[in-house]
């Protein structure tokens, strides 16, 4: 088998399976063959990620993590799944039954919809939409509604408080998330994810043309990942479900498999935003060096995805949680001005002649305001004197 055959193997299989279907049902069968792998692969990745995350956090916190089920505890997700399926599904008596039931379903459905426009390999995308990036952010906004439904229908102060925190945070960070991706749309001149990846899949010497290797692309990538962390409600932005403050936040009144669905939806959202970051900035399925193009394209997508997931786990184990006012100040006083400035820099980059001057000008244009904005966040803060401890004697 040649490398091209291995690269196209899933497409070849799909066409082979499709040839057995009668002509009348072929469009439906083709759609099914595109959707079912997505429904199978990403929940599997979720299962693997839970055990990797618990192992990684355990390593950071100097303990073992799960180590009872299977070799090195790697069958832990199966035990978790059996546990959540056999647990009693408790619904509070005063809860709004219908909305309470629909919220996890809407969350998971919205999370899965986002995968429709992610190209996981060469010619491997469920739907190549003309406005693909717009579709991604549109279905992402459905998650907020699901979170509200869960928090409100539970009739619990903690869950309502968690939902309010989550919605306020998601709305605030959705603005920088969208604005950070605008630079790529400007550079590619297209909203189609397939076109954006194709534009990055060429090489100068051995080096790829990924957007992250430009000043505006690098800044855009960093801002995008910060906003993605906040969108996924992950540490250090995990106020909506901060366990020491409001227990589990908006899904406190969910048990059994509905609780697992919330977990699934949250991780699927994280994978989808990471996949979008890969598509926009890290070249999608393109290989990192020109001499590695013989490796199948889908391998590179999932390798990059796993690297970003490892980054998420590392950040979660390292950084403490932000306070609410710090969270909002950071979104509106740092992230938003930086993304707007980045759009300007991307425009300047486009109209300047290629060379080192362009690099220098753009780097200064980004670096100086970022330092000033960071100093502005510090301004007006009272100097806190060293705390004196008083003990009962």
């Amino acid at each position, binding site marked *: 088998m040649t490398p091209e055959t291995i690269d196209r193997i899933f497409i070849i299989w799909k066409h082979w399976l499709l040839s057995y279907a009668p002509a009348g049902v072929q469009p439906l069968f083709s759609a099914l063959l595109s959707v079912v792998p997505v429904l199978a692969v990403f929940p599997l990745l979720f299962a693997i990620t839970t055990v990797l995350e618990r192992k990684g956090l355990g390593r950071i916190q100097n303990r073992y993590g799960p180590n009872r089920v299977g070799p090195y505890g790697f069958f832990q997700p199966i035990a978790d799944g059996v546990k959540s399926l056999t647990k009693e599904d408790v619904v509070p008596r005063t809860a709004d039954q219908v909305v309470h039931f629909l919220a996890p379903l809407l969350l998971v459905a919205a999370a899965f919809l986002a995968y429709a426009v992610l190209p996981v390999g060469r010619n491997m995308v469920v739907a190549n939409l*003309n406005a693909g990036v*717009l579709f991604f952010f549109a279905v992402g*906004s459905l998650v*907020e*509604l699901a979170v*509200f439904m869960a928090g*409100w229908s539970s009739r619990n102060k903690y869950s309502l408080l968690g939902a309010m925190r989550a919605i306020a945070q998601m709305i605030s960070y959705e603005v920088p998330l969208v604005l950070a991706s605008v630079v790529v749309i400007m550079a590619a001149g297209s909203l189609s994810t397939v076109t954006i990846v194709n534009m990055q899949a060429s090489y100068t010497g051995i080096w790829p043309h990924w957007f992250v290797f430009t000043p505006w692309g690098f800044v855009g990538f960093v801002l995008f990942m910060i906003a993605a962390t906040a969108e996924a409600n992950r540490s250090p932005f995990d106020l909506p479900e901060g366990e020491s403050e409001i227990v589990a936040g908006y899904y406190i009144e969910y048990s059994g498999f509905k609780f697992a669905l919330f977990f699934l939806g949250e991780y699927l959202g994280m994978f989808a935003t990471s996949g979008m970051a890969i598509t926009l900035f890290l070249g999608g399925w393109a290989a990192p060096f020109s001499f590695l193009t013989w490796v199948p394209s889908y391998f590179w997508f999932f390798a990059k995805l796993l690297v970003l997931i490892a980054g998420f786990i590392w950040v979660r184990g390292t950084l403490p949680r932000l306070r609410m006012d710090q969270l909002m100040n950071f979104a509106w006083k740092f992230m938003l001005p930086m993304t707007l400035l980045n759009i300007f820099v991307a425009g300047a980059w486009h109209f300047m002649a290629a060379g080192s001057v362009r690099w220098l000008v753009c780097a200064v244009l980004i670096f100086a305001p970022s330092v000033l904005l960071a100093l502005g966040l510090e301004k007006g803060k009272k100097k806190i004197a060293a705390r004196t401890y008083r003990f009962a004697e």
Partner: protein
Amino acid sequence: MTIPFLILAALTIAGIAAAMYLRNLVHCILALTLGFAGLAALYLQLDAQFVGFTQILVYVGAVAILAVFAIMMTRSAGPMAQPVFSSSWIKGGCVAGAVFAVLAWAIDRSATSLEMLPPQPEVAVRQIGDALMRRFVLPLEIMGLLLTAALIGAVLIAMQEKPEMQ
């Protein structure tokens, strides 16, 4: 009149009707969101991708959440006390019927001339951007200015100055 159109139309109408008839305000908003989503699906069925996704992004994502916040912050979200049908429902029904009759008449009249039009070419997002940035740039800027003024006004109303605190 294809089957997907009929399903989407029924969904949209059911959602908007439920938004008027349900007793709980939050349920009303959730039903209205269903109507918005159905409308977005209808746009998508007409191959208007940009309008369809913007409908979801703005109405389902932002307007519904805004309405929910407004209700939660201004009044209790319990069921209303007054009946679903207002006392003047006959007059209201007459006005609604008249408006519907005029609209239906206008659409019915235009349908005969519409059938002779060639099928519309697919409008790409790029063309919409070109139109907004070239031909309609002045209306766009005026809309932006108007929205900014509204935003500043809202902040001014919401900002409470407390002189006794200083």
